[in-house]
């Protein structure tokens, strides 16, 4: 059943809503995974949901639903009224009239769906087979999975704003365990994009197998401070945790590391970070969840903080323009960071490593939700990696922790590598960071 948008706005108006908005999201996806030469699971998803907000007497009410029948509009309007009634805060409440200009676009390629699903399954079988054949120490391929999706989102509001985006993408994920002399190590690899031709089976298999096999023989190093190099994945992970303090709401509510730091040095001069969700990749977007146009902007330039991230509400409080960083679940928006690009340095990763006599190279960080206190900047995280000895990679390290403080760490960046990598999980293009000293616990 289609959602009756017209009826929604008419009813909102007749109930005295000052303004209202509505986001309709639709998605379709297929996925399959292979285990021991068979399709172990296959799934198919069709979803639609509507998220609506309304302003009544200057208060914001909100509702989300997945049920579409003759009662849907009434249910939503009633729920918005009911939820708005209890709001007490006098913070500004805004439904947006629209930005002057939008860089409209989609990230959609229908040719992905024209390739028969059987072809995609074949890729999975091929990956599994090649992984098992790669090295006899690969004792299990836990799963190899493919998923593709197509989604469409339409944002409208009572001021007549209408924004629409259509996206398609696929991802391939494989996880293996390797075993030698009773020791087990595991790792996984992710690839995502929207053009299947860009996927290279052999490169994927090699990357996963090599990085997992290299972990065998993991030991603990002596506990002390070491010069540390973070691989691109770990660099992006810690950078995103650091930049979470750019949320203007936290600054306004006295709970951010970056209070009073706008225009100030917050990190080493080597660090320049640009946010660009307009880049044509799986993270593409041209309007945020409040309907504000997204633009490319510097977040940190040569270590200096260029902007906080604003929603409509927090921007109005500070008397500035919203930055297109509004994300919302059901009700109020909060600010978040889109796709970021870290400016690469001049030195290759090899050069970074060769300058260290004794140090640690980190390849994995675990348990961010437990060991990272981004608000205070303190972290103590389970890690894996390698010793660096005399400028070269040496023995693998397992069950170590790396700890420190994000502010100190980002001020202690010695170098940024030239090895920028597109990171699906880090939502970033990021190279390796070389850090002067971080505390590593092991033995």
């Amino acid at each position, binding site marked *: 059943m289609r959602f009756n948008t017209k009826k929604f706005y008419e009813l909102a108006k007749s109930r005295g809503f000052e303004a209202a908005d509505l986001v309709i999201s639709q998605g379709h996806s297929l996925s399959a995974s292979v285990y021991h030469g068979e399709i*172990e*699971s296959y799934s198919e*998803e069709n979803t639609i949901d509507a998220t609506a907000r309304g302003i009544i007497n200057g208060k914001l009410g909100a509702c989300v639903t*997945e*049920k579409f029948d003759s009662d849907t509009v009434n249910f939503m309007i009633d729920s918005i009224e009911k*939820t708005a009634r*209890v709001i007490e805060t006098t913070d500004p409440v805004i439904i947006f009239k629209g930005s002057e200009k939008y860089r409209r676009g989609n990230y959609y390629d229908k040719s992905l769906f024209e390739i028969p699903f059987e072809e995609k399954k074949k890729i999975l079988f091929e990956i599994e087979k090649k992984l098992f054949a790669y090295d006899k120490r690969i004792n299990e391929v836990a799963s190899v999975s493919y998923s593709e999706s197509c989604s469409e989102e339409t944002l409208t509001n009572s001021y007549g704003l209408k924004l629409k985006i259509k996206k398609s993408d696929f991802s391939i994920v494989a996880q293996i*365990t390797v075993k030698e002399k009773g020791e087990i190590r595991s790792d996984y690899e992710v690839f995502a994009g929207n053009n299947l031709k860009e996927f290279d089976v052999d490169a994927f298999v090699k990357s996963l197998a090599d990085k997992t096999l290299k972990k065998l023989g993991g030991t603990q190093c002596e506990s002390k401070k070491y010069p540390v190099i973070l691989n691109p994945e770990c660099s992006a992970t810690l950078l995103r945790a650091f930049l979470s303090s750019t949320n203007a709401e936290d600054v306004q509510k006295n709970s951010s590391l970056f209070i009073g730091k706008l225009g100030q040095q917050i990190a080493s001069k080597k660090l320049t970070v640009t946010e660009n969700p307009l880049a044509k990749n799986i993270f593409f977007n041209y309007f945020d969840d409040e309907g504000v146009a997204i633009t490319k902007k510097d977040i940190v330039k040569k270590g200096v903080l260029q902007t906080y991230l604003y929603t409509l509400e927090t921007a109005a409080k500070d008397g500035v323009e919203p930055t297109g960083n509004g994300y919302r679940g059901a009700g109020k928006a909060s600010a978040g960071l889109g796709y970021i690009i870290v400016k690469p340095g001049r030195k290759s990763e090899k050069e970074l490593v060769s300058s260290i006599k004794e140090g640690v190279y980190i390849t994995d960080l675990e348990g961010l*939700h437990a060991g990272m206190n981004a608000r205070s900047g303190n972290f103590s995280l389970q890690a894996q990696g390698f010793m660096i000895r005399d400028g070269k990679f040496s023995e693998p390290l397992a069950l170590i922790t790396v*700890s420190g403080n994000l502010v100190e760490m980002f001020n202690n960046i010695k170098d940024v590598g030239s090895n920028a990598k597109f990171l699906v999980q880090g939502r970033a293009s990021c190279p390796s960071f070389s850090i002067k000293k971080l505390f590593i616990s092991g033995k």
Partner: protein
Amino acid sequence: MPSKSAYLNILNTALSTGGDYAEIYIEEKISQAVSIENGKVDASTVGKTYGAGIRILQGVNSVYGYTNEVTTKGLLKLAKSLSNSFNGKQVLMVESLKTKHIKNNHKILEPLSEVSSEDKINYIRPAEKVMHKYDKRIVRTKSGFMNSKSVITIVNSNGFIIHDEKERGRVILSCIASDGEKYESAFEGPGAMSGFEHFKNNVDIVKLANDAAKAAISMLSAKDCPSGKMTVVIGNGNGGVIFHEACGHSLEATSVSKNLSVFSQKLGTQIASPVVSAVDDGTITNAWGSNNIDDEGNKTERTVLIENGILKNYLVDIVGGRRMNMRPTGCGRRESYKYEPTSRMSNTYICNGKSTPEEIIKATKLGLYAKTLSGGSVNPATGEFNFGCSEAYIIRDGKICEPVRGASLIGTGGEVLMNIDMVGNDCERSNGMCGSVSGFIPVDIGQPTIRVQNILVGGNGGELK
């Protein structure tokens, strides 16, 4: 909602290409949430989840699909499309369906779905005030009440239509303390599968609010935690996350059945120190992680996992059971119709031992007292886990001394279980959300105070002296 004959048609369509089991899972859920920030109600939302999933099994292989179009037409279309994954002949035909009535073991007097937002706000406001006024250095407080009511219908090729209803509620109390430079936060989140009466009569939220504010302020003056291998005493209640992560996940059929767990093929062997017994119990009355039935339609159970150090059982769902040739233990769970169910924990805890918590502290010369853990994660293949400590102290000469911050505990499940040398008699459960392949689900974790020898503690404070 489709009729009985429509369900038969959908199931038989799903089975038309050789599937040996089919199941329809329909979910309608209303969620309500209201929150107060710095003393004022700042957000309130209502959400409705509505959809259906269809699963077809052929041996240990499965196909799964879901849709919001919960009509005969929508489900038939999905069943047809999913059945295309197999290319055999029909081996099973469902002839009739019988409605199974599920007894509700979790009595509710005042359903939260019928309590007004105003009443919920009035309930949490005093706690919010306590945090706010505790100390000038509490710079931000946020509290909330969230609850949901789900109506579930499971129709399967064993010939049953099963209806279940459940309501859960949870209070969230959080605060941030700052001295202008450092920030520390604390959190309490009591939840239950019960009505408003439970919160009013059994939950002392003012005390919890006070505990949260106290913890945040206490951590503000804490020094960086030392690092290295130490004797660690882990507090009761929420400390149970260590068993949940370090051991519980590795006992789920999801990883055990594929030989991906360090505890695969270890039934009947000693995997923990003899002072350790542990249980997963999905039947505890009104508990946050309980259910009448699991999301595969099987009655929840009390499963003894470890008894005096010996591995007694795994957590087994239908597919895992087929792979392992074991009976399902009523633990097939999922976040919503958007997930295929798999083996998950419910209320998992280490059973009481003989020592008092005071005796355990007193017997420890130098070590760490990890009072509250903030969560963690595990790699079931290697058993390697990590936890963060949100509140921790150094133990010196049998006494709890200075607070330390930024501590994390690292180790492997196999090792830590063997290294537990003292178990207290003060078992408590604590409520949380567990994330895994079938989404985020409510679970209880729990334990008495325990002592573990030789855990690697990560921190920024150098060697423990």
